[in-house]
Every structure is written in structure tokens, then in C-alpha cells.
């Protein structure tokens, strides 16, 4: 117990220092930060891009293996535990946590951007539209959810079945034993916090950009950096107030409201948008996504420029990995009582289908508008103002003002809920996996993550966010691969324990 507490202290201080150094660097040596992150970014892409591709494909294969393996019947928790939530609420929560702001931010911008500058082939063509949808499915489909499956399952299994603290290092207990409480465990936890802070700062940065864009669209507020920084400041005050006044219950209600609103918007667009096209896009793209999956998963351009892959596929893989401890922790918390098989179906298969449906509705409708009107300027306008893209898209649909207001509400709510939940996760991770992180530590992380989002925006907006998250997530990608083997070892021992139990029951 003492070792756990000491571990918590060290982890908190070192990870805080590392993040503060980064913020200091960003504020006072902005150009230097941009230069160095670019250097790391280019190095990661040129020399280590294959690590991301290989690791992520491995997670998909590993998750599918778990689905059909003999470990599928193992229950997360005691054998008598049953899920806290019914399946529909559980799936809705997973979907909201896993994608959140990103899905609103990119669902229009990404397909249209791929349409205007595709990974291969001619832009502004029917082929480009199909490729655009295919890659959108790819970036938001099985791969991110497989990353979440691996980390969520590992966290849940070691927390509930092995009764270990809610820390990433706990997932390495079968390999490291009690060394999870020593320097190796600390290093793992520090890296996971570092990756998480960057993943969350990236999302908060995107969120602030989109909240500002929404205010610009609805209220005419200028869409500029200064307003984005004000948005970050106001949100920080709001969620820090919630931490101190025990309004977390309210945050849960907000989170549920965001999910309900998201589904309402999705259904509304399905009805008022080009319904038949959306259905066709869903079926057609699902087909080409499945058939081209392996090619897309391993696609690098050894004899040419790999810029497209770097700025899209590798960015996403890094982003999902950086986002993984946070989402994994959430998924683990809501999945107690589920079996491994239920877990994999719920976290890998169903949300993938849901995301593909969402992307077909938003992306398919946007591409339909761009294609039908032959309006290449509209496409360019969307790609040049990514944070405004969803509002630009709403303008072309009936009930546009209702959709804009609903869309703005969803983004604003997601922003607050993500920031609030992130402080809790960072608190847990940096205090040795305790389920009672102190308010002081939660508030510290709240301020830090907002400051980091602000610094990254100041340093150069989205590009620096992308480079920073790729750099921060790389070591964690390797940690996650090792985590799979550790999980397998843990599951194997659990099967033996359960077999042993049965035997002793029969004998008695």
C-alpha cells in the first residue's frame, strides 16, 4: 500500500514537470518548439511510420482473436457480477466517449478533404468520392476501436479480476510482477500520462476551434485565435468549478444530453438529407472498406512522398493511441460484469458499425451536395476552414439553423465533459491508480491540459497538435503491443484459476 502511494507521488511530480517543461518551451520558444516537433514528426514518419501501421493492424487482429478465443467466456469482475448498465446505454456511452468531439469535427471535413486531395487518383471525381469515404471508414472504423478494445480490456481485467490499481502499469503485472510498483511501472505510468495529456490537449484544441467556429456561425463572433483562447479559459473555469462543487453528477447528465443530441442530429440529417444516397454510400463503402482493409492497413509509399499517409493515417493512429488511456479507462469503468466476448463485440464491432453509419450520413451527404452542385469552391471552402466545415454543411440542408444550434450545443457539451472526465483520469493515473484522486491534483491537471491546448494553438494550430501527438504517442504504441502479451498471459492464468475452481468444487 505504501509503495503504491510513493509511486503515485513520483509519477505525479515527474509527469507534471515534463508537461510544464513542454508548456514553458511552447510559450517562450514557440519557433523552436515548432521546429523540434516538426523534426520529431518527420523522423517518426520517415523511420517509424511502419511501427504505427504494424502495431495498429496487430491490435485489430488481436481483438478479433480474443472474440473467438477460449477467453471469451471470462467475465470482467467476479463470476456473479452483472453489468451496471443495460446494453443500449453501454453502447451509447462507448460511442460518445470513443469519438466525442472528433466525430463532429471531422465527419464532414475529412471526406471532402480526401475528395479534393485524395491519397491517389484524380481529385473531384466519382472515384475520388468513393476513395474519400473508404479512407474515412478506415480512419474511424476497426482500428481505433481495436486500440480501445485492447487497452480497455486490459485495464478492466487487471482492475476487476486481479484487483490491481486502476493504472496502466497494472496491465503489466503478469510480466513485471511487483516491479509494476517500481521504476519500470512508474515509467509506464509517466508515458501513459504524457500521451494522455497530449491526446486530450489535441482534442481540447480541436474543440476550442470548433466552439469558436460555431459561435462565429450562429452569433457572428470573430473566428480567431484570441476567441479560441477565451473559450479555453472559460471552459477551464467551468470544469474547475464543477470539480470543487461536486457538480460531477451534472456533468454526467450533460454527457447523456450530448449523446442524445448527437443521435438526434444524425437522424435529422438522415431524414432531411439525401436518404437514398446515404444508404448507398453506407453499403458501398462498407464493401470496399472490407475488401481493401489489408492494403490500407499496410500502405506506405516507399518510392514516393508519404505526406498524405503521414498527415492522415499516421496522425489518426497516433491520436487514437494518445487518446487510448483516457478512453480505455472510461470503457473499463462502464464494462464491469461483461464477458470478454461481449466486451469485444461491444467495443470493436458495434461502435465500428455506428461510426461508419455516422460517417455515411455526414460525409455521404456532404459529398452529395458538393458533387451534385458541382461546386468545387464549396469543397475548397470546407477544406480550408475545417473547424467551420460542419456549419457550412448545415447551411445546405433544410432546418439549417436548428442543426447549427444543436451542433454547437453538442460540441460545447462534449468539450466540457471531456475536459472534466480527463481531469479524473489523469488524477487516477498520477496517484497510483486510486479511485479517489484528490481535488487538488484534478484541478492541477485541469489547468495544465487547458494550458497545453492553448500553447499548442498559439504555436501554430492544428499542425503542431498533430506533430505533438504523433511524437508523444510513439513510445506508448510500443507499450500497448507489450500490453497485449501481458493481457494474454493474465487471461491464460484466469482460465486456469477458473478450471482449478471447478475441479475443487467437483472434488468437494
Amino acid at each position, binding site marked *: 500500500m505504501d509503495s503504491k502511494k510513493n509511486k503515485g507521488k513520483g509519477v505525479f511530480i515527474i509527469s507534471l514537470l515534463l508537461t510544464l517543461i513542454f508548456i514553458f518551451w511552447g510559450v517562450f520558444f514557440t519557433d523552436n518548439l515548432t521546429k523540434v516537433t516538426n523534426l520529431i514528426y518527420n523522423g517518426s514518419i520517415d523511420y517509424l511510420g511502419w511501427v504505427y501501421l504494424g502495431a495498429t493492424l496487430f491490435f485489430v487482429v488481436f481483438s478479433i482473436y480474443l472474440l473467438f478465443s477460449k477467453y471469451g467466456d471470462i467475465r470482467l469482475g467476479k463470476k456473479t457480477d452483472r453489468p*451496471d448498465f443495460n446494453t443500449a446505454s453501454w453502447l451509447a456511452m462507448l460511442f460518445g466517449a470513443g469519438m466525442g468531439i472528433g466525430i463532429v469535427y471531422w465527419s464532414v471535413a475529412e471526406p471532402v478533404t480526401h475528395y479534393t486531395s485524395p491519397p491517389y487518383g484524380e481529385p473531384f471525381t466519382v472515384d475520388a468520392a468513393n476513395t474519400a469515404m473508404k479512407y474515412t471508414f478506415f480512419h474511424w472504423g476497426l482500428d481505433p476501436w481495436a486500440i480501445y478494445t485492447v487497452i480497455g480490456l486490459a485495464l478492466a481485467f487487471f482492475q476487476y479480476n486481479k484487483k490491481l490499481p486502476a493504472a496502466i502499469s497494472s496491465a503489466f503485472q503478469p510480466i513485471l510482477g511487483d516491479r509494476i510498483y517500481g521504476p519500470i511501472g512508474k515509467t509506464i505510468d509517466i508515458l501513459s500520462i504524457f500521451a494522455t495529456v497530449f491526446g486530450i490537449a489535441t482534442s481540447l484544441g480541436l474543440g476550442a476551434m470548433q466552439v469558436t467556429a460555431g459561435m462565429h456561425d450562429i452569433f457572428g463572433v470573430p473566428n480567431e485565435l484570441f476567441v479560441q483562447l477565451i473559450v479555453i479559459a472559460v471552459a477551464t473555469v467551468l470544469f474547475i468549478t464543477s470539480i470543487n462543487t*461536486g457538480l*460531477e453528477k451534472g456533468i454526467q447528465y450533460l454527457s447523456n444530453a450530448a449523446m442524445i443530441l448527437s443521435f438526434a442530429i444524425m437522424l435529422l440529417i438522415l431524414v432531411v438529407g439525401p436518404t437514398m444516397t446515404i444508404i448507398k454510400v453506407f453499403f458501398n463503402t462498407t464493401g470496399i472498406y472490407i475488401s481493401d482493409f489489408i492494403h490500407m492497413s499496410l500502405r506506405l509509399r516507399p518510392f514516393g512522398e508519404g505526406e498524405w499517409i503521414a498527415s492522415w493515417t499516421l496522425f489518426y493512429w497516433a491520436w487514437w493511441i494518445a487518446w487510448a488511456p483516457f478512453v480505455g*479507462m472510461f470503457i473499463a469503468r462502464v464494462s464491469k460484469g461483461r464477458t470478454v466476448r461481449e466486451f469485444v463485440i461491444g467495443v470493436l464491432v458495434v461502435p465500428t458499425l455506428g461510426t461508419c453509419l455516422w460517417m455515411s450520413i455526414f460525409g455521404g451527404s456532404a459529398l452529395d451536395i458538393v458533387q451534385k452542385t458541382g461546386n468545387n469552391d464549396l469543397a475548397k471552402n470546407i477544406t480550408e476552414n475545417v473547424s467551420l466545415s460542419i456549419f457550412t454543411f448545415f447551411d445546405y440542408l433544410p432546418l439549417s439553423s436548428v442543426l447549427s444550434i444543436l451542433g454547437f450545443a453538442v460540441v460545447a457539451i462534449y468539450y466540457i465533459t471531456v475536459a472534466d472526465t480527463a481531469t*479524473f483520469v489523469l488524477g487516477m493515473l498520477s496517484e497510483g491508480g486510486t*479511485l*479517489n484522486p484528490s481535488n487538488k491534483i484534478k484541478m492541477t491537471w485541469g489547468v495544465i491540459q487547458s494550458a497545453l491546448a492553448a500553447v499548442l494553438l498559439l504555436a501554430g494550430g492544428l499542425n503542431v497538435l498533430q506533430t505533438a501527438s504523433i511524437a508523444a504517442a510513439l513510445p506508448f504504441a510500443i507499450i500497448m503491443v507489450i500490453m497485449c502479451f501481458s493481457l494474454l498471459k493474465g487471461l491464460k492464468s484466469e482460465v486456469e484459476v477458473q478450471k482449478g475452481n471447478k475441479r475443487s468444487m467437483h472434488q468437494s
Partner: protein
Amino acid sequence: MKLYQVRKGQFVYYNNELHKVYGVKPIYKKSVHLIRLRDLTQDLTNAVSVERYKPKEFDSFIFNHKAYTLKKDRKAEEGDYILIHNPMPDSLDTYSLNEIEMVEEVDKHGVITSNSHGVKHNEYLLMVPGRATNCHPIDYQNTENVETQSIDDIGFNNFSNPNNELLPTIGDVYKMLESDTSFEAMVVATTNQTVILGSGLELTQEELMNKDKWEFLYNLLDK
């Protein structure tokens, strides 16, 4: 009580007895799902048939056949039951109002329950086994209409059961303390107020539960 006021977790009186709402399903005619605290049997009813009760310190009630008194003057320890009466769950917590959970670990900020919840010290009331002397029994809304026999059945007089059980039950083995010779006997029959021991000795429940005179050893069925 109007439906929108009925929430999951609330303590309510239904048929004059203390229940907990474990679910509200508004589209059904019998929309309120209840669980009776004393024996965990389930009931279905509607919002107008229940009346809310907010548990507070020194309230005592039977939960799953055992009596407890709510206290907040001491922190929970490992193995204690807590009633989460002031839930302020963090974003990832899944507990809600009036959940009864067992404590697995205690730290300076709060407790961690066997259900993997981190609960702060100001969020719960400790459920101390037995009925404290100055407690306020809340098992019935209106005790005037309840027959004395029924009140006794749920242990209103049970202040000092050595095994935290409600009353002596068949199979309990007791040892007489104030006796020159060793005397042990098992409870073989009980009536409303009377307990009959294996030797044919008849005595009241209160007499048998007097710690100075009798010591509870074990229950035959637990062995």
C-alpha cells in the same frame, strides 16, 4: 408522489414498509420497481403508492435480515457497509443515490468499495451493525398500525445480538455463563417471544440475548 420525483435509489414507504427504488420505467403502468430492504423482495407499483423518506444519522433499519444504525461520526473500515446518501460521483463513477456497498479499502480521501467505486468520506453514512440505543427505527412509516408481534419480528428489540443476527434462530448454540456447571444448548424451537432450548428450557428472547447470562457460540447450520 408525482412520477418525476421518483428516482432510482430513493428510500420510500410502500405498504407502510421501507423500500428502495431500484428502477423507474415511466412508460409502464406499474412504473416504480422497488426492493424491500428488510428481506430484498421485489415489488412493482406506481408513483402515487409510494412516499419518500430521506435517511439520516441514527436511523436504523433492517437490511437483508440484519439490523443497522446509520452513523457518521466514525470513518468506515474494511468490511463495513456504507449507505451512499450524498452521491457526488466523479465522471467515471457509476454509483448513485442510497447504494449500499461494502468497503474494501480506506484511504485519506475516502473508501474504495468492493464494487470498485471511489467514495469520499462525506458521501456516505456508515451502517453500524445492530440497533443503537438512541436510534430511530425507520422500517415502518407508521408503527401504530403495525402489530407488536410484527415489530418484534423485524427486531425492534434486538439491540445486542452477539452475532449481529436479528433474533435467536433454530440451530443457534448458546452457552450459559452464570452457572457452576457447563451448560450448552441449541435453539430447537421459537414462538413469538419464547425460545425453547434443547434441554427443554424455555426463556424469552431478551433473556437469551443478555450477554451477561448467555454466550452465543455458533449456528449448527453455519458449520
